């Protein structure tokens, strides 16, 4: 039965790791702006004209 206690200990440990991750996320400001990152991910860094052209074609062929 004591295996339960060990399991409990490990499950708590895992949960505490997640809690710590959450606290770190809030602390580092990830909850300051919940909107911009969603837009930012859609903006590619550098796209050459060729790529741009081929992408437009893909869109057109659909």
């Amino acid at each position, binding site marked *: *039965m*004591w295996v*339960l*206690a060990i399991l*409990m200990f490990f*499950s*708590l440990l895992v*949960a*505490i790791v*997640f*809690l710590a991750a*959450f*606290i770190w996320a*809030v*602390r580092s400001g990830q*909850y*300051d*702006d*919940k*909107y*911009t990152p969603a*837009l*930012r991910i*859609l*903006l590619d860094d550098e*796209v050459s004209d060729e790529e*741009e052209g081929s992408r437009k074609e893909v869109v057109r062929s659909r």
Partner: protein
Amino acid sequence: MDTILSTELKCYHCGDDCTGSNVVLGEKVFCCNGCKTVYEILEKNNLIRYYSLTEAPGVSQRKAQMKNKFGYLDDPQMSRSLVDFTDGRVSSVRFSIPSVHCSSCIWLLENLYKFNPGILSSRVNFPEKEVELKYNESILSLREVAELLSRIGYEPEINLSSTEGGKKKTYSKSLYYKTGIAGFCFANIMLLSFPEYLSLVNNVDALLKSVFIYITLVLSLPVFFYCSSGYFSSAIQGLRKKVINIDFPVSIGILTLFGRSTYEIVFLSAQGYMDSLSGLVFFLLLGRMFQEKTYGLLSFERDYKSYFPAYAVIKTGGLETPVPLSGLKEGDRIIIRNEELVPADSVLIKGSASIDYSFVSGESLPIEAVEGDLIYAGGRQKGTAIELEVIKRTSQSYITRLWNNSDFIKPEENRILTFSSVAGKYFTASVLLIALLSAIYWLKFGSTQQALNVFTSVLIVACPCGLALSAPFTLGNTLRIFGRNKFYLKNAAAVEKLSRINHVVLDKTGTLTRLSEKNIRFFGMELQECDRKVIKAVTHNSMHPLSRLILSMMRDTELIDAEEFKEYPGGGLEGVADGKTVRLGSVSFVLGSDSGVHQGGSSSVYVSINDEIKGYFRAESIYREGIRELAHCLRNYNVSLLSGDYDGEKDRLRDLLGSRVKLFFRQSPLDKLNYVKKLQEQKNLVLMVGDGLNDAGALFKSEVGIAVSEGSVNFSPACEAILEAQELRGLGDFLKFSKTSMKIIYVNLIVSVLYNFAGISFAVENSLTPIVSAILMPLSSITVVAIATLSTSLMAKIRGLN
């Protein structure tokens, strides 16, 4: 100018209509040179992609600012007050940039480092319209950073409040921490209590069981001491003010839950109610989080400080030096350039002023002033630079004096008791009574132990979590529904205040009428075609807004050239066309100063042709659409209208608003404030709807102040809510819906009382077990939350709100 006529020609940079513009680069047309310059800068720096992300993403540069605007940022004291952090090499600064509006803006602002290696990084916060920049101080100065931003069309907004430590963040991280920790503890305690729920405990040896319950005790410590601290402090605060608020019975519930559970765990090695405790706190915090909907960009706390610039340029001898506004004193000579704001009441010394007072008085047409005239703080100069002598400090000026009024300084007394606090009082009283009575019963017919058990059980199970949850969820959801309909409330409490209003006070200019558009009408003799021709010829030469308005009325008239033309600032125009002498302007200019004709406001333009008076043009405000509907929707309220204008449009207003509405004209900002105060003294609960600084006092004083805004970037004074102008007609619906929300809260109260009856009946019989409590309490919470959110959304749909 009128020769090129093509339809739908849009500026490549900003998308404004630029029909007739000759600013061309290759195939691209721009509305002005400013837009073209920005394009060229971007092209040079290989950032043309800006234009492929969004169509015409730029900001019109027609009102481009003059150079050297940010000269004051070289002042070390000034830059220190703006910079967040510096280590001598790298500095970090946060600028508010109101013109950020699309994903192209984000992209360009985050690629700032490509313009200048001195910029190390830049990060945009879109909802707040802010950019956080890190730059190398040895390469770039703060001023150069600001200038770079304005060169590409993103001028940072630096005003008095950004330098006076107005950077406080209202959003609190602690609510996130508390909710996260409570959720963590709740889940783990539930897991540990599971054997108990399934009655598996008999198979487990006692030592293991005590390990389990002691872990739950440890886990509940942060819930009790940290997560629920907000409820305790609020309850204590209430008690200090001799008010029993809703947090008081909640605190009692939490306290008893924790106390009794600790006792049972330590002394009886029993399960305790830690699962119910952590669940309760977790749900309550979730409710708080739901309620805390913030609109990043909108600020509800602004006073004149966020409207006035941080610095003024003083002229001493031949030198121009920037000084902070707080250092401006009587007798200082200041220079105000085009589009700059007059920072303090002053007298015009040099130059011709054309002052736009639209924020101060709501009047959109600029007022001309000549040397020696008094110019009030808050006006914006349109035209060439002028020199002024300050006669009153900024904080003592006509418009800012409002904020020194005692009504602004003394803390606001809450005249509306929230329903939950009223209900909380009766709730607490009756729960305590039931608990005591049943304890007395058990003392008589049972043991002391049993009596104590029953007493605590009643307090535990009667904890008004339903009531405490229904208000935040209903009001929070209402807040979101209003937000989707472009009606932005400061907080959830405003919904409840809105539902109690019985008197609506409206402002006219800028609220019922449009801010920037005017209609022009002619009164007098009928104008012949030949008269119109010469009037058009003369006004065509003038850039004065009234001339442009008159011109817009004569679109069909043939354009001929004026032979002579002269403009008298502060007076009018004189010109010769087709052999006729035309004079246009104020009464005194056209008729002579001793004519005895009533002035009729500043927006009348008299016309004489060959010294024969033809009549006058008058600019009339255009009313927003749906004013009639609005008046109809407000028929169950008392309505007053306060206007800063003359009573020239009285009949029209009567027609629009109906005869029941009380009309008041020529009201100063202080009059408006006093009117609201008078209504409140007569036990009215007042809703004020206004716009500019001139309504600030009344907006602040009223129970609910709604600032009407054309485009959410506009300045709006301190208020309870911001309403987008085109939604004004829906105000009646919003008021009605706030009442519906309150009804939903009442229904929820009944539901939670029913649950409490069930719980209390267990408790008084002394048969409340941890499992009953662990089922009953979350169940009631979930029911209440479901009713609150679903029914508000459903009602919104039925009412036609999005």
